[in-house]
């Protein structure tokens, strides 16, 4: 549920551990059904391992860290012109300055292009001249439940001495708007690539839920379908409406606030993580999802009165809603 970008500033020195010493194993070129199902024995585990090892040297160098302002996310280079796919909440508005940290620790400059805020796709272009390694794009429509996949990114942001972090997992569900896998993600992974075992980009890391298996990726097909709009710097899909700035606990039967975004109307109004909203403008409220329903009927700038249970206290807050 939480966008995975982390917001902190890392040091200015980059040293990468070289992957040059990796022994390469020849990959079986035929797409094996082993890669779509549970391995039955050690031989099948080895077949998957050999395939992962064969593609990693090709796909690790295409994975980049993306820095915009003080925020950090991840991305993947997908063509020789230096187009970088990322998440919409990483790239944000068009034409912003980007620093990309390449696999070898070198940094290059870039600009944000377009994004679809609704599905969370985004694009960046490297503006420095040079030749960059890139990964081919696959098709999400071909994906199957149970298929093995590889997630790479920079969880927690770029860390000196740490190579891009590799996770291997399986596809748990595929829809037009989301791929869910058990490749664990966390802040900083946002925008990083999900690969199939052939080394094709099939998704872009977007958000997580409360379960360890709720890791959500933007399906690659939307990048194919909207390539021109993204490349031309169009930003769309944003909703206009009131903005509070909270994330809720979906497991709770109450309207429990898990996070308050700093600087948001909620933060300014004194709402805190762990608070349970019991009433909005005097009317009782149930689980968190009801909060969005209620707020969607209000206007930006409106004042909303919240009754909040905080530990053993009842706190009354008045918050002026912002604009999305």
């Amino acid at each position, binding site marked *: 549920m939480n966008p995975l970008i982390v917001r902190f*500033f890392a040091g200015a020195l980059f040293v990468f551990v070289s992957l040059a010493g990796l022994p390469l194993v020849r990959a079986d070129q035929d797409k094996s059904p082993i890669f779509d199902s*549970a391995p039955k024995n050690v031989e099948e585990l080895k077949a998957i391992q050999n395939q992962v090892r064969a593609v990693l040297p090709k796909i690790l160098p295409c994975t980049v860290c993306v820095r915009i302002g003080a925020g950090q996310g991840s991305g993947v280079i997908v063509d020789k012109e230096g187009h970088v796919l990322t998440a*919409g909440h990483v790239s944000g508005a068009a034409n912003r300055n980007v620093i990309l940290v390449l696999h070898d620790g070198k940094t290059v400059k870039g600009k944000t292009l377009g994004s679809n805020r609704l599905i969370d796709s985004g694009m960046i272009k490297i503006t420095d001249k040079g030749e960059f390694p890139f990964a081919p794009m696959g098709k999400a429509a071909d994906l199957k439940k149970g298929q093995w996949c590889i997630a790479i990114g920079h969880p927690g942001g770029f860390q000196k001495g740490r190579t891009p972090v*590799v996770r291997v997992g399986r596809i748990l569900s595929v829809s037009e708007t*989301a791929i869910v896998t058990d490749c664990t993600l966390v*802040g900083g992974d946002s925008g990083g690539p999900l690969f199939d075992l052939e080394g094709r980009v099939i998704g872009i890391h977007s*958000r997580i839920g409360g379960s*360890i298996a709720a890791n959500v990726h933007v399906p690659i097909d939307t990048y194919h379908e909207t390539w021109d709009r993204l490349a031309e710097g169009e930003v769309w899909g944003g909703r206009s409406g009131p903005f509070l700035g909270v994330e809720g606990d979906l497991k709770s039967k109450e309207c429990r606030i898990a*996070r308050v975004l700093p600087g948001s109307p909620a933060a300014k109004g004194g709402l805190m993580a762990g608070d349970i909203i019991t009433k909005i403008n005097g009317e009782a409220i149930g689980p968190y*999802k009801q909060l969005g329903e209620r707020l969607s009927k209000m206007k930006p700038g409106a004042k909303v009165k919240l009754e909040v249970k905080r530990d053993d206290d009842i706190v009354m807050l008045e918050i002026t809603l912002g604009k999305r």
Partner: protein
Amino acid sequence: MIGDTRTSLRRFGLAVILGLIVASAGSLVQASAPTTQKQKSNAFRKDSPQVLEAFRSVVAEPSKATVRILADGEKAALGAIVGPDGWILTKASLLNGDLHVRLKDGREFPARIVGVHKHYDLAMLKIEARNLPTIRWADSSVAPVGNWVASPGVDRLPVAIGVVSVAARTVPNAKGAKPTPESGAGFLGISLEEAEEGVKVSQVLPGSGAAKAGVRVNDIIVSAQNKTIDKPENIDKPEKLINLIMRCKPGDSVVLLIKRDGKELKMQAKLGKRPRSRGEFQNNLGSKLSKVRSGFPKILQHDSVIKPEDCGGPLVDLEGRAIGINVARAGRTESYAIATEHILPILYDLMSGKLPPRQSEVSAENLSPQQKVEAARAALRKAEEEKRAADKRLQEARQALQRAEAEARAAKDPTGQSQD
């Protein structure tokens, strides 16, 4: 290192973030809501029973060299048998209480700590057993990034599986393993600026302890006191007040001496709970983390979702070779092992008494009241054991003296009749 999260977040466009969350809710619910679908999708998970079954032969041998460590009868850790006559390597900070070791064959032995390596949070245990199977060490380079790893327990199947995410590496500026402070520190709810005298309040969070106490923007705080412990402390820099609040628990009362419009006011604020940082919040989603999970000077990172109480045991590759010892569930995406090549140089020191355990080392700072009780009990037990051992030595010494005196008397007695 850590920048101003507040401003950067603003810069980042909050609207996008919430928009995204709302937009994403549907897909997430679809992925996990209906029970039948959830059960079905569990079958597709990388750690589904079918996949774990494929690792059965991988852990068959190493699990014989893996032990369950019990502290006061509770599952505390796993351990790796590193010497056939009862030497067991494990995670040090999990060893609080009366220790027992249970082997795969069901035998159980009392255990004592003989060595602790504080920086790696590793401990050597000794049990009185012989001819035990030992783990087979291998340099971690035999399993590069992307290779499968399994964490054997004492059962048929591994307790966790995953892949090597990042090869063994030296962590810059790591100062040794240490407990991660809990997010439950005290929280006053104000932002501060430096001032000529005291510190100036630049923001008051509505609904916070400070707001309820009546603290206002532009108030000057000149002194503060945690009512339950400390004396009033002069506040001349924001850090002083921050440190004071960080030492407090939620629910503590803090008395503030405030200057406002030339008048001095005394206010008492009840502290709330410090909210978790965003990274902390996300890392805690979905799995329980080890209390001691950072500061290791060298780590091998893998993506197995291992339980904190299953740390301390070996991490093996598909050949069943131990490439390291699991030391922490460190975050949502990461578990840490200390690689074999970093353990072997300290193994003998851990056994020989060169790295002796100290009560203060094993039971570190930041203990909960319950843990303090346990640590005190352990210290008492240890003291009692030492007293028993000393009593025994005392008795033996007395007997030895008696014998020696008798011998001396006999030597003086030429008839020798006093002997025997």
